[in-house]
Structure formats: structure tokens, C-alpha cells
């Protein structure tokens, strides 16, 4: 196993203070998946939203358990927003034949999660709303890129059209989150400062 110094973090004190949340990046936006028709496509879009709903809610729980009320509230809000999106898709596109979730959720390419799903690995207990919005922004951006790609590459025209619509909608969301970010105070440079040691247990 690699023991490269580059990977290594020496010194526990450093370990306690340098746990910065990095800019939430994911290498791929989730590659397009082959969709058969518009219903299939919208079903996936709907599922994507639902996965995001579920994830934000989990993140909110995590932050709540760790006494970070501002970020808890924000993730709850994001979860609600995504739920609205999901409901909207259901109502506008899938009302005739309400879809059934496949077990374990849908498969995204290469085993990745849905493009709009936040990575729990990005969390930090001291994070501030600004960080949470960065995470949300990245999610929306990935979603937008995802739909854009489908809009370009799908063979089915109806799918292309629907994807364009979705991409536009996600672009709006990106804009919304960006605005929100602008209104949100930037985190203090020492936002993750915690002079106390971790708790030991068990």
C-alpha cells in the first residue's frame, strides 16, 4: 500500500485543524445514460431529484446531530426544494403512469450517484451555510451539464427536447444558488477552528 509522504498527514495537531472542506468537485458529471423515450428520460430525471431529496435530508440529519443548526436548516431547505422539483416533474410529465423506483435506486454510469446528489464526504461539522451552498451549486451544475449532454447526444428528439428543458431549468437553479451564495456571508478564514480534541468513546 502506498506510503507516499504526499498522502501522509503528519502531526495530530495539524490533523485537528486542517480538515478543510475542499471545493466540492466531482470529476465526471455522471455520463449520459442511454434512455429509450421521453417517459424513460423523465423517470430518470424524477429519480435524480428524489435521490437528491433523500441525500440532503441525510445531510441535514448529520448536521443536526452535530449541533450545526444553520446548515441543518439549509440542507432541509434544499431537500424541500428538490422535492418540489420532483413533484413538479411527476405532475407535468409522469402523471399518466406514475413510475416505480427500481430497487436500490437507479444505476448511473460507472456506478456513480445521480448527478444532483451531494457527496456526504464533503461535509464538515463546522461548515457554514456558504459551504453548503457550494455543495448545492456543484450539484446543480452537474445536473445542468448532465442534461445538456443528453440534449446534445440523445437519439430520440423528444428526449432531446425534454433534456433541453431540464437543462434550462437546472441552469436557472444554478443561477438561483449563485445568487444565494452572493447573499451569504463568506466563511471566516478560521471557520473550521476547533481547539478541542475529538471525543473518544467505546
Amino acid at each position, binding site marked *: 500500500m502506498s506510503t507516499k509522504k504526499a498522502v501522509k498527514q503528519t502531526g495530530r495537531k495539524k490533523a485537528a485543524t486542517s480538515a478543510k472542506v475542499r471545493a466540492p468537485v466531482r470529476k465526471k458529471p455522471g455520463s449520459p445514460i442511454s434512455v429509450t423515450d421521453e417517459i424513460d428520460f423523465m423517470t430518470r430525471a424524477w429519480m435524480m431529484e428524489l435521490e437528491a431529496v433523500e441525500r440532503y435530508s441525510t445531510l441535514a440529519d448529520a448536521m443536526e*446531530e*452535530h*449541533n*450545526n*443548526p444553520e446548515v441543518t436548516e439549509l440542507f432541509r431547505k434544499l431537500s424541500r426544494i428538490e422535492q418540489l422539483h420532483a413533484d413538479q416533474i411527476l405532475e407535468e410529465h409522469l402523471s399518466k403512469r406514475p413510475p416505480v423506483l427500481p430497487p436500490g435506486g437507479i444505476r448511473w454510469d460507472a456506478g456513480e450517484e445521480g448527478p444532483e446528489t451531494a457527496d456526504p464526504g464533503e461535509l464538515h*461539522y*463546522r461548515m457554514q451555510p456558504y459551504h453548503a451552498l457550494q455543495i448545492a451549486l456543484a450539484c446543480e451544475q452537474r445536473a445542468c451539464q448532465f442534461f445538456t449532454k443528453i440534449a446534445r447526444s440523445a437519439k430520440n428528439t423528444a428526449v432531446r427536447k425534454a433534456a433541453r428543458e431540464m437543462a434550462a431549468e437546472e441552469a436557472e437553479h444554478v443561477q438561483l444558488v449563485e445568487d444565494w451564495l452572493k447573499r451569504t456571508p463568506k466563511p471566516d478564514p*478560521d471557520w*473550521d*477552528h*476547533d*481547539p*478541542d*480534541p*475529538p*471525543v*473518544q*468513546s*467505546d
Partner: protein
Amino acid sequence: MHDKVKAQGGRGVSIALAGSGGAGVMTAGNMLLKAAAQAGWYGLMVRTSGPQIRGGEAAALLRISAEPVECLDDRFDLVIAIDWQNIHRFADELPLDAGSLMVGDPDQGNPPEVLTQRGTRLAQVPIKKMAKAIPGSWPNMIMLGIAAALVGLPLDAVKSVVEAAYGKKKKELLTPNLAAVEAGFASAQTLPAVPQLAAVEPTQTPRWLLTGNQAAGYGALRGGVRFVAGYPITPATEVLEWLSPALTKVGGTLLQAEDELASINMIIGASFGGVPSLTVTAGPGLALMAEALGLAVAAEVPVVVLDVMRGGPSTGIPAKSEQSDVSIALFGLHGDAPHLVIAPNSIADCLGATQWAVHLAEAMQSPAIVLSDQFFGQTQAVVDRPADMHFIGERAKASAPTEAYKRYALTESGVSPMSIPGTPGGAYTADGLTHNERGVPSSQAADHLAQLDKRERKLLRHDYGDYWAEIDGQGEIAVITFGSCTGPVRDALARAAADGIKVRLVSMRLLAPAQPERLSEALRGVKKVLVVEQNHSGQFHRYLRADFDLPGEVRSLRHPGPLPIHAEEIYRKITEWSLM
């Protein structure tokens, strides 16, 4: 600040600093304790926190006093909270009353009902806003200033601690945080009063600030331990963490074992090699060591096992104190396996008791279990530097053994000189099988009995001197206790004494082998005995019944952890009983 009251010298003031993870309440508490220490006060600080590893609710519980203190008080004078989130989870640990004062940040909501219900006053200070107003400063420094001011700790004392903390490494943090401390200090002037610390003279006698875990580690080294193997476990890990670099410095070593079975067998192997050895663990680990402890008894290999007790059974409550490993420590070995069990009776005594344990183990070639606990182990305390002790681990060695060398010779003392590998002519095989004097396996009744007798004899014939117990006071009522209940018992006895009730204290340091004659001597004339311990089934009480003869009427005062036994409970029990 109105109505300044001086706290009783001995009782001191009790302060809790609370807030969610990241708020730095432990750091603030540490600084407060250090400042008090440097300014001449005594004190101690207990950490408590929620189950979350990070970001959970936490509190630093302090007691500062002009006289030495060995436990928390029954109540708090002051609680300062940066926020109140989930603080109800340890409301039990924060007994408040109408005389107490809570200080909170109005922007962080209100304290939970469980804290306010006892009529405790609440004062508001916009702690976070004040910190924000001083860029680069942290709320916990505001809190530190408030606490210092309220209890009457000089501002300078606190500032010098802050300077020491940030002055060297992080200069840019120093100025704003000093300002924060000052701002906090100033803001307290308008707050309701809490009892203030009694004045102290700057003392000349050297003092230490340390935890029981550090003290035990240091005691082990003083006793001569040079090999340690251990497996991490809460709340014992810090002993290993302290010992690891320390051993390297003094010429010994520490191995992290793969499990506790390995730890104990490693130290037995090392001690067979002639090197005084120790391991450190808590209940679950001690249970795993039971089999090999029997080997140490049978093969007569001295080892010391420090058990930092925590809530049990099973995984229990790992980060909280309880005295519930008494039974396993005394009786947890299979077969007839007499051995030593020693309990320190204060944080400072973790040093002495551990050192003594090494000494005894080596002197008698016996395993010794030291029963410390989470309270001792993880509480930071200001103590007078303990006196040097002459207890050094030194075993009887067979210096020039001959062909006829009998490793397990039936000596009068029961101790047989041990040949250390490397010594020509002294080779023998240490064995956990029943053996004869030469160590050759035997299933003869006579050999078995002779060796069992010898192993019992060596423990019973040893002269343990006065160190076997702390005995104090006179009177017809006696309290028998051990370990970390000693502090609250002492407090209770002081209160009783103030009422004119005389009570004897016997705090047993040597739990096994039992010293029934000595105890009878200590209890001569006693008519009522109260046994105080922190566990559910009265393990110590039962042991006293089994192996000692207690005079008069005997009562048991006990409850399990995680809450300590309070002085008040003991005091009440005694006073009530004394009237009957």
C-alpha cells in the same frame, strides 16, 4: 457585579463551561484551570461530552479552590454556555440550584427547562457577537474572561495563560484573543454575583497540573517499568500515549499489541526476561487478560495491569467513571490465583499507587492489578507535587544459580529467587502447569498444595506497612471506601466535622490480599460502618463481608455511574445515622 460572596476555602467555586463542539469549551476550561493554578489555587477539571466524536455538545466542569480538591462539588455555582444545544443530555451532571447562575448568549436561545426548573438565575451576554466584534477572536475567550471575572480570578493570571498558549506559535491570534478575554472580563462586571474564590498566597511548594492517567504512567516509570504493551481503549489510552515517548526517553519501550491477549502475554514474556512490565486497559480488556493473569500467578511472573475503570458491563459507558471492576479484579481468575489489587485514592495517588504496585509485584513476583477509573484518569488536577517514594521494583534474583537451582523453591517468605535469562546455570522453564519446586510439571497433590500455599504465603507475609490504607479521624461511625469515592467521602466528612460529627475514614489502597487484622485495628471501637462505592451491586461491600470482619452495623451507600457519588449524599447518610 453585586453581592460578592467568598466561597468556602475548601469547597471553592464550581464552574461549568458548555457549548457545542468547536466552541472550544475544553480549551477555555483548561486555561481557566491553569490560570488558577499559576495564581496559587487548587482545582480540577472534568470533561464531559455527547456521543459524537466531533461537533457534539460538551462541557468543561471545574472546581477551583484555595485548598486541595479531589472531586467535583455537588452543585455548580456558575454555568456559562456558548450555546445550549443538546445540553440537556448531561443535565444530570450539572446540578444547579437557586444560588447558581447561568450565563448564556441571548442569540443562542434559552437553556433547556431541565436546567431552569430549579430556579437558577439566568444572565445574558452576547458572547458570539462580542467575539465577532473583535476580528480573529473566539467566543471561548470571551467565556474565559467572564468566568474569571465572576469567580474572582485575576485578569492577569488568565492573560498570561493565553499569552503562553498563543504567544509563541500563533502570534496573530494573541492580540484579538487577549482582547476577547478582556472584553469578557469587563462584561461580567454587570452580571449577578457568584461566590468568589478565597484569596491565596502565592505558594512556594511545587505544584503539578496533570491527569491521573499521566500520574499513573509516571508512577510506573518511577517504579521501574521499562516495557509496556497495550491496546487502545477508552479511558486508558492516554496512559499509553503518555508512556510511549516517555519510555523512549528513559530507555524502555512500548509496543502496541494486536489485542489485549497479546498485551498481557507480551508483558509476561518481557518480565520473564527480567524487565519490569506493565499494561493498561479498561474493563473489556481486563476480561480478556484473565487467562494470562492466571499464568502470571502460576509461573510467578510479576506484571502490573492498570485498569482504568469505566461504566460496565460489556462496552457499557466507555467515557464515564464507575467502580464496577472490583469483582473481576479480585476474583476474575480461574483456579486459586491470589494476586495483588491496588487502588489509588486520588488523582495524585495514581502516581504513588502505581509505583507501589510495581514495587509489590516485583517484590512478590505476582501480578498486580491497579484499579484507577475514568474520573481519575481523565480529570486534570492541580496537586502538590507528590513526595518521592522509595518503592522501586526490585525482584529477588538468583544471582549465581547452580545445577540444583529451584525456581519455585519453598522458601519461608514464599518468594523464590528468580533466575533471569542470560544467567548461566539458572535455566529453568516457567510453567503454568502445576509444578514442583524445580518447575517440572507435576500433578501430585503435595506439589500442588505446596505451591498454592507458597503463593498465598508470599502475599500474606509481606509487610505492606501503613500504605495499605489512608486512615483518618475518630468516632464511632466509620466510612470505608476506596478509589475515587475517597474525594467525596472526605468532603462529606469535612461537612460532618463542621457539624461536630466525628467520622472515621478508611480508604483502602490495598484491596488484595485482604488485611483483616489491620482493618479491625483501624475500626476498633467503631459501631457503625458505612461502605461507599460507585457501582450497582456493592462489589466492594460484598468483598468486605467475605474477607473481613466488620464491627457493628454495616450499611452500603452505592450507585452505579455515570454520576459520581456526591458528598452531600454521604453527608446526609452519616448525619441521619449518627442521630439514630
